[in-house]
């Protein structure tokens, strides 16, 4: 159908029509969705970029004076010299998102093999056990950890007994609690797409690799990993992206000392009322997230061609 003059007559799946006529009808169907996405997705994106280079007034209002001050601040420059505070927060968020994704992948593989190995009759029940936490609200799941890690619970008592924390203290806020919460929240985001690939795994390839005396590691990298790559990729994107911007988990379990970029952004839009700086941080987060995806895609391509 390509490169035909715009008003040529054509038979489009059984319909005798012209290209212009067809596109007119297509446009009509396209309009509501496109208008909506332009107005509330593309336009806000552009507004965010714009606001990130203007000035905050004394009372938090926007002043339309162009400046790069917000990005300078994000990079750590201020009246008092240079600090790495904001860059540290960005870096920490990337590390937390990466580790969360990695641990989720490491735990998801055994879980997927386990579910795929259940008898046909009960398999979907086991799968449902992963789907339920997937759909359970994130706030509730975070606060559930809040409860489990509180001082009166056995885990905190054990930690106090071992001398890791003070007697009667909770196991939050700290990095450990954040990771615990993050992994438990994002694990199903890897498991579910990965399972879709594991279920279709061609086990004869795995058998063949074993017959040829492949080590367990090369059985995994040569026979299993390439076959499960599609599901794994979805899982990694679905985990890494929201994990980068997560806000509830560090807010409830991390405290001020373990701040992530999500909290920093929320602060600018909430208490600090510094929209331009918040917009600049959002841009930083976006760049970092897209960078992460790009790095992964490059590495992933290498893996797929193995």
């Amino acid at each position, binding site marked *: 159908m390509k490169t035909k003059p715009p008003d040529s007559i054509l038979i489009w799946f059984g319909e005798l029509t012209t290209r212009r006529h067809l596109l007119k009808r297509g446009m009509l169907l396209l309009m509501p969705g496109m208008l909506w996405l332009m107005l509330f997705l593309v336009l806000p994106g552009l507004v965010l970029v714009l606001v990130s280079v203007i000035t905050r007034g004394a009372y938090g209002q926007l002043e339309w004076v162009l400046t790069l001050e917000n990005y300078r601040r994000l990079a750590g420059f201020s009246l008092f010299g240079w600090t790495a505070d904001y860059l540290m927060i960005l870096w920490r968020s990337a590390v937390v998102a990466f580790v969360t994704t990695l641990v989720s992948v490491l735990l998801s593989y055994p879980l997927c093999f386990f579910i795929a190995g259940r008898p046909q009759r009960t398999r979907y029940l086991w799968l449902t056990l992963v789907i339920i936490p997937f759909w359970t609200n994130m706030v509730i799941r975070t606060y559930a950890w809040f409860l489990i890690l509180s001082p009166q619970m056995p885990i905190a008592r054990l930690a106090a007994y071992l001398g890791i924390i003070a007697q009667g203290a909770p196991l939050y806020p700290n990095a450990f609690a954040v990771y615990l919460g993050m992994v438990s929240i994002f694990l199903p985001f890897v498991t579910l797409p990965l399972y879709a690939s594991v279920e279709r795994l061609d086990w004869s390839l795995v058998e063949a690799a074993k017959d040829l005396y492949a080590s367990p590691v090369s059985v995994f990298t040569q026979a299993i990993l390439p076959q499960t790559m599609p599901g794994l990729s979805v899982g990694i994107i679905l985990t890494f992206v929201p994990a980068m911007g997560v806000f509830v988990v560090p807010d409830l379990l991390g405290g001020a000392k373990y701040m992530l970029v*999500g909290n920093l952004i929320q602060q600018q839009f909430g208490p600090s009322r510094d929209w331009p700086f918040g917009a600049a941080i959002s841009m930083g987060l976006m760049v970092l997230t897209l960078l992460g995806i790009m790095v992964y895609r490059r590495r992933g391509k290498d893996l797929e061609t193995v």
Partner: protein
Amino acid sequence: MRRQHPLTIVVSYLTLLFLYLPLFGVAVFSVNDARRGLVWKGFTLKWYVKLFQNEWILEAAVNTLVLALVSTLIATVIGTLLAIAMDRFPWRPEASSVLDLILHIPVVIPDIILAAALVVTFGLLRMISTIFEPGLLNMIISHITFQIAFVTLVVRSRLVAIGRDVEEAARDLFASNWYLFRRIMLPLLMPGIVAGAMLAFTLSLDDFVISFFTAGPQSQTLPLYIFAAVRRGVTPQIHALSTLVMLATVGLVIMMERMTRRQEKKEEPDVPSAQIDTHGISGQPWPMTPNPCKEL
């Protein structure tokens, strides 16, 4: 059946325990007869009774449902039209790849960025009209925005899966546009539309960040209420509320499960392309194939 390594089994049980232990903790303490602290004082249901006398919570529950229902309804209609428009017309390749890119934005950027962008935009729109004050309307608009993307992706994969043979046959038999849409496309598309709508509905119920940024004082939702309450200090009422929300989630998952399985059974005999399953594999409520993140 393949023999499984004992380590696989042990790790899997531990992982599931890790997922469920905190949730069970909440459920157990929701029936504990102690006002404060986490010491077991006996069974009670009074926190559940108190829940239904709490006006704030009832209002938040209503808001949550109104928000999810209204946004899902609008997003499903718009998303379905968009999917048909994108898949069934001879667009130039550049035009459709731009559309595709826009559609994938909500998938590849953290939701907090969309939330920030919408807050700023609503803030500027307030100069034009007061209807953009923080509140339920803003929340509905925001939810629709990310829902459209997901509905469109699901419906479009269904469109690809059903192919165009039936449509072409109908055209050959002189079906009008309206007849084709109403009698041929819509029935064939229905499983995809329902799957997309259910995905949109659950995404709306699950959302916290976007609601948190766009909500006003009069438009609390249950997740927002729980979050605020936890920061003030947990109470048994919040345990009870969370347990009810979890039970509702379980109910919703089972319902989705039932629907997708029934659909699969219905389609297996006469649709040979049933393996290009569009509404999730073995009952998964996620648009797994064709993979929405593959063409990132």
